[in-house]
């Protein structure tokens, strides 16, 4: 097998093995979206009246509305968490080990991204299965159609985490990123409320939400779950993926020396 593919499959396999050994992390990652779905949404549904908007063809419950947003949330948190583990890895040295492999850095970073995205997607499907147990379902084929959307969205959010990890020198700074990246990205999006609803309160906020790549990732997933393609969302998500990936490659460029440490 070619060295590129050998390395890719080893990196993905390592992520998978680490994941298997960290069941607590998996359960913790499940609790968050399920709390939103089963508690927050239940309480909130009365407060928010939804009208029929695409891709829905009928009135839907609030729980149904936020499922794609929560899928996005899993991808977002995992993307950031895996970048947290990169900062930790870099401090602990296993990132250094990876970067001494005789392969181009962009390939190593891309492989790492594929590994973490695969784990994220597994978590999303687990979440969808649990949601289905509570009768919160989508179109049967939607589960299949969502796969490419989840892949693109997962890679995009993972690439963002990767880019951020190259700019964070120490683990402690990461808490700030959580507050300044994760929360704004999540709340300034269509994950919890449709954008027209946001526009009623503030057109400015609506415009910010419409710029947010996370909104487009969520919409891409939402439409895919109902067997529809939203071209604008796809375009935005892919563009964001390319931009974040380039930023990450630049961030990890040895000539820029962001990975250096004082000796």
């Amino acid at each position, binding site marked *: *097998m*070619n*060295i590129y593919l*050998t*390395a890719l*499959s*080893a*990196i993905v*396999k*390592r992520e998978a*093995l*680490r994941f298997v*050994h*960290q069941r607590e992390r998996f359960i913790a990652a499940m609790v968050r979206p399920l709390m939103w779905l089963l508690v927050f949404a239940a309480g909130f549904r009365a407060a928010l009246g939804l009208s029929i908007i695409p891709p829905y063809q009928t009135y839907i419950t609030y729980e149904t509305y936020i499922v794609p947003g929560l899928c996005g949330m899993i991808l977002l948190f995992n993307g950031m968490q895996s970048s947290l583990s990169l900062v930790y890895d870099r*401090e*602990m*040295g*296993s990132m*250094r*080990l*990876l*970067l*001494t*492999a*005789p*392969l*181009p850095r962009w390939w190593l970073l891309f492989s790492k991204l594929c590994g973490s995205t695969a784990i994220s997607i597994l978590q999303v499907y687990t979440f969808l299965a649990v949601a289905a147990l509570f009768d919160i379902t989508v179109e049967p084929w939607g589960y299949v159609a969502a796969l490419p959307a989840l892949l693109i969205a997962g890679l995009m959010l993972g690439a963002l985490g990767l880019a951020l990890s190259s700019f964070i020198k120490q683990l402690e700074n990461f808490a700030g990123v959580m507050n300044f990246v994760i929360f704004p990205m999540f709340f300034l999006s269509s994950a919890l409320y449709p954008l027209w609803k946001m526009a009623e309160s503030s057109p400015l906020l609506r415009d910010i939400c419409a710029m947010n790549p996370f909104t487009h990732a969520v919409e891409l997933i939402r439409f895919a779950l109902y067997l529809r393609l939203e071209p604008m969302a796809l375009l935005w998500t892919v563009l964001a993926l390319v931009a974040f990936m380039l930023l990450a490659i630049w961030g990890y460029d*040895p*000539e*820029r*020396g*962001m*990975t*250096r*440490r*004082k*000796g």
Partner: protein
Amino acid sequence: MTVGLQVDNLRYRYGAKEALKGVSFTLEAGAFGALLGPNGAGKSTLYGLLTRLFTTSEGRIEIAGHDLKAQPRAALARMGVVFQNQTLDLDLSVRQNLSYFASLHGLSGRDAATRIDAALDRLNMRERAGEKARALNGGHRRRTEIARALIHKPDVLLLDEPTVGLDAAARRSITDHVHQLCAEDGLTVLWATHLTDEVHDPDRLIVIHQGEKLADGHAGDLRGGADLSDYFLSLTGAQA
């Protein structure tokens, strides 16, 4: 003389602070080079540059005949590295850790398995292959990391303070092991340390302090009749 590792006028600065002020040395193939320097001498910066974690525009590094700047991948392929911080996945077994690394060097299947067994045998770690890295003590974790660094049969082995945190017995055993590897397999070794008792008389000794090379020669010759640690202290003390 075949050159194992060559460092030529290497400079590096962190902002205004100059961490390496034009360091040069050459290790012939099969030499054991001890890089001795107090904390903050620039050893880790040098290792960062040698492993291409970051690069500098000033100076040149050659690994087994490959220029690290011009042919980074060929140079990295000839290099084995043991980092100062431990880099094992503690939840994975010794063998899983090693086969992950083998794959990063494009080795898989039977070829990788044979090499892994050979490397583990070399370090007397074969019977621990199935254990989780977490179950190993510090000395055995280090051995695992050395075994891992040998899987792809490198020409040059770089170790950055590999005995940090080990007890006296493990420290001695690892030091002797690597000296033996160097003597028997013709491996070029660069061993960074601040502990003089890890340096043997026939070793090539390079002393660096505050980013500059202070001494370079065979340890036995350099220390003359004196104790190596006295020699080292007088050298670095005078400069401080």
